[in-house]
């Protein structure tokens, strides 16, 4: 009996679906599967403090390591990595050199000012500037994937210099740790 009810429900929904399909020539919204995955946080890594306060575990998880800094900020319309950020980039380059199976996405971003496609190109240029430094300091090309999001993925939505500063950035995102 239950089976019969289920069957009945199924056929009812099939009819409802068929009703929709008969309008298949309408502008139908194409569904897009979201393939984003937070690989950086995907694997759980155990880490702990020693009794003496020294950090054990993956250096990527040490909050006092320069590796904990994964965002580099830029001036307006510039792709020059500032002197103060060189140490951060170097630390990631050394980590990548020492962990040949580790890999990063180098994600370039721009603030909202100006045109969207130009900002897409600018984000790529910023990503490539960081990539060049990583390569120069020992990372291998196959460990680095530059992706530009232009102004499409702001950290914050404000229309002021404070917000724009936060949005003009490159994020180093570990897609594989070792």
């Amino acid at each position, binding site marked *: 009996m239950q089976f019969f009810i289920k069957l009945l429900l199924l056929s009812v929904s099939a009819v409802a679906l068929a*009703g*929709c399909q008969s*309008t*298949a*020539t*309408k*502008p*139908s*919204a*194409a*569904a*897009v*599967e*979201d*393939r*984003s995955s937070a690989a950086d946080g995907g694997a759980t890594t155990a880490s702990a403090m020693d009794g003496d306060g020294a950090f054990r575990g993956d250096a990527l998880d040490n909050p006092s390591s320069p590796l904990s800094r994964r965002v580099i900020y830029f001036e307006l*319309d510039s792709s020059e990595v500032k002197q103060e950020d060189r140490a951060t980039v170097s630390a990631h380059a050394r980590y990548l050199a020492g962990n040949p199976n580790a890999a990063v996405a180098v994600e370039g971003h721009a603030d*909202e*000012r*100006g*045109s*969207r*496609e*130009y900002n*897409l*190109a*600018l984000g*790529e*240029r910023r990503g*490539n500037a960081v990539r060049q430094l990583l390569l120069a300091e020992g990372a291998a090309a196959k460990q680095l994937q*530059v*992706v*530009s*999001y*232009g102004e*499409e*993925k*702001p*950290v*914050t*939505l*404000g*229309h002021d210099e404070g917000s724009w500063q936060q949005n003009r950035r490159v994020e180093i995102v570990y897609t594989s740790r070792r």
Partner: protein
Amino acid sequence: MLTRHHLLYCLLALWLPCSGAQAALTIEITEGVPGALPIAVVPFGVEGQGAPPEDIGAIIAADLKRSGRFAPLPERDLLARPHEGREVNFRDWRVLGIEGLVVGRIRAMGAGQYTVQFQLFNVFQGTQLIGYSIPTSTADMRRTAHQISDIIYEKLTGERGAFNTRIAYIAVSGKPPAQTHSLQVSDADGHNPQSILNSKQPLLSPAWSPDGTRLAYVTFENKRAQIYIQEIASGKRELIASYPGLNGAPAWSPDGTRLALTLSKDGNPEIYVMSLAARTLQRLTSNLAIDTEPVWSPDGSALVFTSDRGGRPQLYRMSANGGEAARITFEGDYNARGVFSPDGKQLAMVHGTGGQYRIALLDLKTGAVRVLSDRTLDESPSFAPNGAIIIYATNEGTRGTLTAVSVDGRVRNRLLLQEGDVREAVWSPFGPRITLQTDTKPQSSNP
């Protein structure tokens, strides 16, 4: 053949029983116009069984008002409500200073079918300028109203109307990092919005095919910028460009056979042209700078694009076959996203000076630049197919909105989504012209 199909799609677009409700765009007129032609559109009479689903007279009046070329008399000020010529007493209208008069009648034929009859009069001369009756249906009635607006506009201004057209735009809701993005298509007056693509990842740069049946766009659904072409009516879509690096800024050639685009597969962003049939690529620029945002001149002979080869982003022009590029913008420290007027004589662009980004018109003959917008973060200009209006994206407080401005800068309409941001509106090409056969004969009336 193509135009017949296009017509069919437009008809079907109006009848969507199974689609989810979309956030409607509302339009408000923010600036009036001195010198607009005083016109009266009398609410249409109704005959037969069943109330018509739309107030055709109100739609026509709103269209004409939005154009800025006409000042329709508010309905409450009407002294008489004639529905056909012999009921018109022209003195009534001359007293009010009305120069054009539109009257009409909707006849219900049953089974959702209607006939709409309308007449346009020159009030001072007391003569009929045009009169037609048009068969339509429940689903098609708004479109019929826009077609009537187009006929009236063309008769009185000598230019083709663009009321029976559509816009595509990107709607974004939510806060980072959980924003949702959708590509929507609505009528040019913001009605009847339909999502044709929804994504949790960014969408940008929609571009209409010249026949108005497809959109090219950039999507990040696979975690990087790729170009798809989607058929609007069926939702069928195809991945067009997925080279290493950027795949962006798609622009259809006027004949619809090629796509100009930006690829960085060879190291940095360059302009390419892809033949859509053979999928072959021709690289047109070769430069260490950023080259992007190609657009075709209306005759297909030239491309204008954005490049920072001179240090800052400026617009350059080159042959559609490649070769030397010549800089064409010299005013302002940032000029990008150029788009040709339909007559090819002007470019609308994002014009940045002193940290203010506005929409400006560049006269290609004289080089004169005229700023059309008045905010600080304006972008993405797009011409109506008749060249009379430019729609662009701007901000209203923290909200992204669209504004439509007449090319003379005198009329401004704001289009606001009910919630979230709306941006990157692109105006469709003209639809097929309506075939008019039944002319309502000029009728005698009281002079």
